[in-house]
């Protein structure tokens, strides 16, 4: 077995040194009836690298990779170009095979990266501070709601109708157990998100308003007005960003009054990966730092006075506070944070702005062409790189037929909102810097054929 360094002679010598006759003597604490006498039946034996690679390649080959078809999916996971540098660097063993930096003297690499990452996220979001990452955008969103409840000592969260339905679903799961009240509704097919309805549902019991920016239908909510309404009622505004590239073009939520900003960082550096691992981003006002969940890296000095970094404010966390911790989170998304941070360092703020403008321009070209397909209209008047098309037929069926033609033509609202039939003719389509004119033409042609 190529991964196991002990030889039979080593094992014999070590058993001798320990003073037992066989390895089974080391398992004496396991009751005899629970010990398996031999190998678990029905399972294959070890396999060489070549055989395993062949098996895995066979499975991979059954999937239609995004790169091998015209591709328009978004809805919380976005396909962007990831520079080769990113994947090269994250595979350096010192990053890849390190643990959570519990021994800061020999983990300054990871810690400095986290400090840089926190600064990048805070500046991107327009928040004072940020943490060292969460599992993903959806779980970060629930953590933010819990944090708002601790700060305001209230437990009623109002969700905007345009919040990603998987996020809503996850929040509802948790709220069922914690007893929090969640106000939510499915979106309607309007060009603008329902601002007044949302504001009207904020009351003096409300801990927070959760607003996705841009929202799941690609629309851009008026965060500043919602922030004012929330603050008038003593509630916090939580902004949710599922496409961080948008913040190269759109004003940062923190600058519009958001108190907590969470997001999905997958767009930068991480890749699609069929949904995970992704990267939860979490920023907030400095005064809330002791209520923030997750690991936090801070600057300090060593015994020689040299600048260095450590994990800090750990008394918020489970390994010290146990049942009183701000969250149960332990593992975060360190390597994805590294990928995000490298990609962001390559781009810089100006590069991100250019990338965002390019995405937006590509989306304009997409909307112009697809809107010309007979029977297809675009819901959005304002958007970043994702829009909702209204089709003359159920979009789920359309997506399947497009896939049969090897066109990955977007995400149907029917899949996202199965219980809202009024949305079922909606199709979410996204363009990024990777979307070519030929891709757009292929989707336009495919749509015309499928809808004919």
């Amino acid at each position, binding site marked *: 077995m190529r991964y196991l360094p002990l030889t039979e002679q080593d094992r014999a010598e070590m058993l001798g040194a320990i003073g037992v006759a066989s390895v089974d003597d080391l398992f004496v604490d396991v009751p005899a009836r629970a010990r*398996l006498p031999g190998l678990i039946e029905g399972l294959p034996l070890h396999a060489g690298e070549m055989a395993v690679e062949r098996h895995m390649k066979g499975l991979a080959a059954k999937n239609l990779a995004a790169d091998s078809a015209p591709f328009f999916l978004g809805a919380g996971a976005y396909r962007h170009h990831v520079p080769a540098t990113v994947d090269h660097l994250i595979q350096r063993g010192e990053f890849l095979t390190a643990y959570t930096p519990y021994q800061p003297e020999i983990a300054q690499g990871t810690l400095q990266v986290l400090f840089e990452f926190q600064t990048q996220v805070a500046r991107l979001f327009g928040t004072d501070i940020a943490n060292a990452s969460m599992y993903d955008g959806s779980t970060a969103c629930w953590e933010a709601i819990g944090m708002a409840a601790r700060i305001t000592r209230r437990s009623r969260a109002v969700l905007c109708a345009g919040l990603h339905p998987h996020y809503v679903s996850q929040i509802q799961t948790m709220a069922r157990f914690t007893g929090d009240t969640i106000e939510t509704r499915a979106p309607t097919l309007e060009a603008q998100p329902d601002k007044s309805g949302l504001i009207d549902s904020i009351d003096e019991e409300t801990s927070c308003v959760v607003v996705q920016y841009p929202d799941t239908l690609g629309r851009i909510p008026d965060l500043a007005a919602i922030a004012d309404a929330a603050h008038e009622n003593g509630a916090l505004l939580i902004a949710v960003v599922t496409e961080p590239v948008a913040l190269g073009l759109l004003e940062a939520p923190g600058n519009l009054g958001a108190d907590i900003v969470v997001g999905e960082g997958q767009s930068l550096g991480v890749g699609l990966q069929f949904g995970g691992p992704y990267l939860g981003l979490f920023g907030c006002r400095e005064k809330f730092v002791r209520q923030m969940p997750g690991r936090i890296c801070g600057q300090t000095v060593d*015994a020689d006075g040299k600048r260095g970094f450590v994990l800090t404010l750990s008394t918020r966390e489970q390994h010290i506070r146990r049942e009183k911790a701000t969250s149960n*989170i332990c593992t975060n998304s360190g390597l994805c944070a590294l990928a995000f941070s490298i990609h962001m360092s390559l781009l810089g703020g100006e590069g991100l702005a250019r990338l965002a403008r390019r995405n937006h321009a590509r989306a304009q070209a997409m909307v112009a062409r697809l809107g010309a397909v007979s029977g297809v209209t675009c819901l959005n008047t304002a958007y970043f790189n994702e829009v909702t098309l209204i089709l003359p037929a159920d979009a789920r069926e359309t997506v399947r037929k497009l*896939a049969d033609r090897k066109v990955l033509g977007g995400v149907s609202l029917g899949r996202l909102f199965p219980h809202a039939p009024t949305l079922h003719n909606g199709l979410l389509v996204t363009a990024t810097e990777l979307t070519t004119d030929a891709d757009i033409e292929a989707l336009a042609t495919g749509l015309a054929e499928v809808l004919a």
Partner: protein
Amino acid sequence: MNAPNPSGWRPSVGSGEPGNTGSSPTVSGDRGLTLEEPLSFEIGDSAKCGVDIEAPEAEPLASISAFLRKDAPQLPGLTEPECIRHYTRLSRQNYGIDLGPFPLGSCTMKHNPRLNEKVARLPGFADVHPLQPQSTVPGALEVIEQLADWLIALTGMHAVAMSPKAGAHGELCGLLAIRAAHDANGETRRIVLVPESAHGTNPATAAFAGYKVESIPATEEGRVDFDALKKRLGPDVAGVMITNPNTCGLFEPEMKAIGDAVHAVGGYVYCDGANFNAIVGKVRPGDLGIDAMHINLHKTFSTPHGGGGPGSGPVVLSEALAPFAPIPFVRRDDNGALRLIEEGETGDAAPLSFGRMTAFHGQMGMFTRALAYILSHGADGLRQVAEDAVLNANYVLRSCEDVLSAPFGNAGPCMHEALFSDTGLAEGFSTLDIAKGLIDEGFHPMTVYFPLVVKGAMLVEPTETESKLGLDRFIASLRSLAERARKGDESLHAAPVYAPRRRLDETQAARKPVLVWREEEG
């Protein structure tokens, strides 16, 4: 002392006061291959970019003019050569398994096979969107199914929930399933019992899931006090959370009896499976009467820890809890085709599911790596993994117990980790000194001050991927440090002196938190 160079640039490594023992006599601040690295904000430039982006072919829509960002994010850019150098230099300030033993007890730092990295990057896995039509991702669903089948077979359980993102998220999944099961019976049980030796995530998770936590003491032999547990059991107890093998590195021999007692009062047993690597292929947790257990793919099945994540925490479930498993999951339909069960299909396929725990389907990138690891080892290799991990830990235990106090050493063999305490060290010397001394010796320290039930705990988990030669080197260093600490060798208090940094001032970091870089502080 750090002298400024002619351009005025100086390495941003703090005050660099003269007379500091670690100060470098060089102009650059570097010393040979010991390299300092400023923050990217101190070397980057907003005029630089390491990505060539085509010019946008259109102006932003007039309709979004009210939403436009006034200034681009204040983030400097790096060109590719600068970027590669920045992160490569930073990486050299890190210790990783690739450099040497990383014996963090209960964290399971074993070798990360590179085949697993390669297969995870195949475009058919890495470049697939989670919401693609199911007809375009049968291979992805098959990976989930194959890994699920292995996890069920290895644990002897009934079902597995694949979507939890990490161990603590898996604990949450298990507790939510328990809560949902009690709810379905119309029961409102609000107490979860957790041994005091448990990982902090256990009580935190129980509280996060809306439970009240009560602590169960440990016996002098480092195991759950079964009598105390039995006394506390009653109709208000929703369940217990037991770690097995436990955090003292010992198997809980009464696991089955504990399970029976908990079941007898209508509760469920959650097993923290963080230490499953010690028994994989040797013991099936399903034979011990547990109802739910998470499996850290990043521990037992060697997906890389990446400096703190990502993890992956699938949860195996008993027949009683399986109906409550979260969506989404993969199931074969009557025609033999794999189908993803998600919202809109739960009515017929998963009527009792407690719902969704995360967007999308879980840590696919970890599934591919874990499956490659499992297929490489096979049933025989996995059993050998457990045996070698336990053998290595006992070898360390018996090789050091004459110089380091081993609180449970007389109780018999340990499982996959050896536990020592600071008892017997000279006055003023502690576990911390041993740990920092190991850094100077070129090793990553063991887990320190955990579990809490042992004073000055040192928890050593060598894992099965350490060679005998590597262990002998580690043991020689650990013994030497133990002897120095017993004798009261003052020089140990200064350790580490050979690492990129000396001991860091954690008090200052916590009293006046500096969590982001700001120009005036640079």
